[in-house]
């Protein structure tokens, strides 16, 4: 059992906070346009693993963009949900990157990507058991101790139930956060995809997450595979955010308050302007919630 740490609350990285505004995932094909046109966006996020080389153009452009915008580092390769030991070499690569860019937020997933010496490069599902929760909490605690800061944990897209579940996914995440002091990154598209695939209610899922644990929100598109036996939703980050996901998002931030909100697109990456237009759609929601809060007075947790 890990001890409760004091990583939540005041961050030593408050100098470069990621604001409760809309941001987009930074793609190499947009580096030069962003540096030249400095579009009005709250922040950028990158996959940490794409910047784990020593130098070269990725760092050159990311540094230039980091000088203009707050940054969030989003890890996809740490495998916090592995039964095996934490990949400390990978944590140290992440630590170097954090020292280099001083990101406002650092996040990872409720998932495993490693088994033995093999990195599977996909966010594989963690059984919702007490044993897995203990292991995940130990790895999150160890990571936060090595990094000396809080990380956020994101809910993955899930395609199948794993027999023997002892709690719901929101219960797992909330207990993890309360035990380790980590925050949560709620991917509303993943909530929609997982709940649709598992025959559950996305609204109930989101209701299970207390506002104070939510530090960031992700939005993305997904694909729908129509099968004779029904449809499977596949999280492919390859298209615009769907209206049903946007509806869930609007309801969610009305309850929890404005949060940094990312538009993710990793396949079929469009022109920068198209991603900015999607970010503006989220920004209007955030502004609306903020204005509403100002009229009604301070929100309670």
């Amino acid at each position, binding site marked *: 059992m890990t001890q409760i740490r004091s990583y939540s609350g005041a961050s030593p990285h408050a100098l470069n906070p990621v604001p409760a505004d809309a941001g987009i995932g930074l793609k190499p094909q947009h580096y030069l346009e962003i540096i030249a046109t400095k579009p009005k966006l709250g922040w950028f996020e990158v996959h940490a693993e*794409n910047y784990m080389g*020593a130098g070269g153009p990725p760092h050159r452009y990311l540094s230039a963009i980091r000088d203009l915008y707050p940054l969030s580092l989003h890890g996809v390769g740490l495998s916090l949900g592995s039964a095996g030991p934490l990949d400390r070499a990978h944590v140290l690569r992440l630590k170097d990157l954090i020292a280099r860019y001083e990101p406002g937020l650092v996040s990872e997933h409720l998932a495993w990507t490693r088994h033995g010496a093999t990195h599977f490069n996909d966010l594989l599902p963690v059984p919702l058991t007490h044993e897995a929760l203990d292991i995940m909490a130990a790895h999150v605690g160890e990571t936060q101790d090595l990094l000396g800061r809080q990380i956020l944990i994101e809910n993955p897209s899930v395609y199948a139930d794993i*027999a*023997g579940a002892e709690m719901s996914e929101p219960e797992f995440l909330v207990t993890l956060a309360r035990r380790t002091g980590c925050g949560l990154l709620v991917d509303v598209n993943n909530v929609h995809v997982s709940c649709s695939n598992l025959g559950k209610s996305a609204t109930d899922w989101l209701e299970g997450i207390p506002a104070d644990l939510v530090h960031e929100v992700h939005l993305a598109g997904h694909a729908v595979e129509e099968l004779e036996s029904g449809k499977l939703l596949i999280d492919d980050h390859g298209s615009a955010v769907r209206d049903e996901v946007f509806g869930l998002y609007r309801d969610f931030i009305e309850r929890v308050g404005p949060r940094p909100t990312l538009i993710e697109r990793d396949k079929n990456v469009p022109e920068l302007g198209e991603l900015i237009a999607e970010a503006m759609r989220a920004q209007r929601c955030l502004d609306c919630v903020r204005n509403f809060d100002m009229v009604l007075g301070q929100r309670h947790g």
Partner: protein
Amino acid sequence: MAERLSDFQAAFAEAISTGGAAPGCIAALPGTPPVAKRFDVYRNNVHASLIDALEAAFPAVERLVGRDFFRAAARLHLESGMPERGTLIGFGSGFPHFLDSFPPLRSFPYLGDVARLELLWLQAYHAADAAPLDPAVFARMGRDEIAVLRPVLHPSLRLFSSRYPVAEIWRTNREDDEVKPVDMHGGGDALIILRPETHVLIYKLPPQQIAFLRALREGANFGEAALALPPASIAGLPALLQELARKGVFAAAASQ
């Protein structure tokens, strides 16, 4: 009683790798897409993302063999060539050897070396940054002074020798809208690959100059490394060093 996490992951990993049936603990409600379809999403994500990564790393090889062949070969390579690190920077280091020994490619013996060049290109791309040494440093020094200098090679510098004209095969397949024929009987290549600034550069050098740089990389000073050069060219060492410095080969030089 829930299955232990380590057993679950061992069974899941095995089923991903072997293409066998989904592990027994994977479940689906009746009347919804079956377990096999659901597990296939994970299996496909793993393999498609890694094949995409190899495709991104080896665009010249892909153009040479065609996209469908490339993806099928990459899928076979994954049976023994899964990544080990949590970042894919550096992934694919076993692919050139796989191409060398892949029977359907026996009549294209140069493909492995094209892949090696693409790997070195990526290594140079991601290498640490350093300001190249000013070539004028060598213009101000006499031969004896230069002979005892030991340079720091640029961190992006890579050396490569091939029996095949890989530089031109690589160039036309990476850059030309229509691939140009390459004279396969014109001899091999001795190359340096480096990135002094933003762009990765590839230069053909005489083989003795590659040997000279190899000696420097192993710690020789300029005088010792010059033994690799033809005797007649030793007098021209300052000029040669200026020429190499202009390409960005050196990051510093100090006498010791």
